[in-house]
């Protein structure tokens, strides 16, 4: 079974994000970039399916040249090969532009399953998966916490408000992955060595017949401004006996925070 896995190259979730002086971008100095954590669930799931059924796992990214590092990480975890649709503008373009790039690769690769993270951390839009499903006219399941494959079919579960939703559909399909789906493996050191020799195909959007117009920043969405959240005030520490403190906590949560 051939599985395509989307990988987004994002600032480390541990990084302290600062807004750059233009008020529009993230200040990138000293920031480490990583595979978006939800994409690791997608890749882990793909690797497990390949281990059970055989086949091939292809990781794909649409992004800046540096995104190669995240694809290498995917190869080190065990993917067979990688494709980068290389264009600086993808980082600032909207989800549709990235979905188009992934769709172009999917058309060339004809996978039986496409797995992505539920969203790329940082922007947290969650658009690329559903849009990709639409562009390819494939069934789509978002933010799944379990996935089982049958003969040409899939069954996925997703957590919704107060219940679990069970979705069934035919393959090929686009599925986006939620935390809890699996526990991603560490890349082995041998895997890191092997990754160097695995194919990483760098394509330009034009090579894939993509319209450069769709890439320009603000093709559909314009970034007006980026602001840091207001600094958090000091926390409240409840003193006294545990039982009294617990009672105070419950009262404050109900009366002040109004969350229970």
């Amino acid at each position, binding site marked *: 079974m051939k599985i395509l896995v989307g990988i987004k190259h994002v600032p*480390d979730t541990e990084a302290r994000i600062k807004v750059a002086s233009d008020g529009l971008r993230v200040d990138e100095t000293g920031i480490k970039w990583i595979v978006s954590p939800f994409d690791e669930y997608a890749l882990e799931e793909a690797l497990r399916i390949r281990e059970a059924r055989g086949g091939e796992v292809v990781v794909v990214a649409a992004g800046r040249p540096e995104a190669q590092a995240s694809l290498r990480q995917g190869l080190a975890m065990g993917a067979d090969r990688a494709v980068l649709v290389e264009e600086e503008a993808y980082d600032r373009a909207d989800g549709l532009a990235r979905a188009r790039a992934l769709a172009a690769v999917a058309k060339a690769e004809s996978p039986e399953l496409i797995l992505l993270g539920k969203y790329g951390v940082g922007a947290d839009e969650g658009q690329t998966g559903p849009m990709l499903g639409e562009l390819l006219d494939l069934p789509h399941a978002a933010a799944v916490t379990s996935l089982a494959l049958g003969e040409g079919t899939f069954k996925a579960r997703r957590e919704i408000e107060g219940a679990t939703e069970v979705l069934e559909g035919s393959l090929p399909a686009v599925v986006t992955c939620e935390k809890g789906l699996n526990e991603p493996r560490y890349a082995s050191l041998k895997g890191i060595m092997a990754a160097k020799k695995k194919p990483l195909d760098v394509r330009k959007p034009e090579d894939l017949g993509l319209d450069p117009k769709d890439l320009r920043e603000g093709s559909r969405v314009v970034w007006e401004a980026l602001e840091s959240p207001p600094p958090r005030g000091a926390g409240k520490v409840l003193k006294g006996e545990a039982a009294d403190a617990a009672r105070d906590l419950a009262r404050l949560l109900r009366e002040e925070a109004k969350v229970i």
Partner: protein
Amino acid sequence: MGLGDAFSGVDLVEVEGLLTEEERMVRDTVREFVTGEVLPGIERHFREGTFPLHLVRPMADLGMLGANLEGYGCAGLGNVAYGLINQEIERGDSGLRSFVSVQSSLVMYPIHAYGSEEQKDRWLPALRAGEAIGCFGLTEPDHGSDPGGMETRAVRRGDRWILNGAKAWITNGSIADVAVVWARTDEGVRGFLVERGTPGFTTRNHEGKFSLRASVTSELALQDVELPASAMLPGAAGLRAPLSCLTQARYGIAWGTIGLAMAVFDEALGYAKTRTQFGRPIASFQLQQRKLTWMATEITKSQLLNLQVGRLKDAGKATYVQVSMAKMNGCRVARECARFAREMLGANGISDEYQTGRHFCNVEAVLTYEGTDDIHTLIVGESLTGLPAFS
């Protein structure tokens, strides 16, 4: 981490840029492993004086054992990547780094370099996979810094060897499936593979350690231990052979100690920024800044020294003198950093709620084994002056 922030290393002069992408990936993988698998339970092991045996297989699965060796399922990494593994694992605990050093540099390395094909096939895949554990017996109760004085003897009887003697302070001793034992013979010092359970071969743990508590250290006793001729390492003749193993291990320790230094620096920095006294974070006081600056500067210099020795080693040009300098330097820097960090944490610096106290204790063993600070000083001194000052 004591303070919740994820560890991201110490890098003030863009050492990052001197590493290959592969080296960075190796480092980050081990770093993540340490944060996820080692730190959560290590304090308890240190407190209870137990080795975290359950981490051996996961470390093996990652490829950390014998990582810079070729073949037999080993990862075949370069020496800088191997150094970075040591750095990151010692950021977790010196006991685990000791395990990796012994297994990789003191057991797998001599079998790889000096063993017969049969010995290599028998042991290397199992040691690599963590299915077998090894130990290295050179030190004796009466011979530490001067292993040339060793008293353990092996005599040939027909096609057998008979070993008698005792080894002391042997990492992994009582949990090892195979011991690389060095003994004096009529043909000079030779190395032997002694399997657990061989009649006459017993072990007893050193108890009451205040350093490397999450590591097993044992005495080995050999009483009329009879071994087949095939138990001898055919390629290892003379003291030069065990010393070559020590050079490998010392190289890893040089990196490991800087991982320890980074861990305590990181904890002290975080602590100083959040601990307030006299109405201000203690990090705002000049005396504390001086300590932090000293630590950061020494860590930075040490990273560059280690890196250069690693590059020389990859090129086949590193000397044992350079490795001695790096081991000596790393231990000194780590010890001083641990001391400063311990001071900065105040009372918390002596509590195992924080990592610093554990590292502070561990660094004492690391400073002593694999050549004390004095011995490395004399090795470098001899190289500078041409005059040996050992005796």
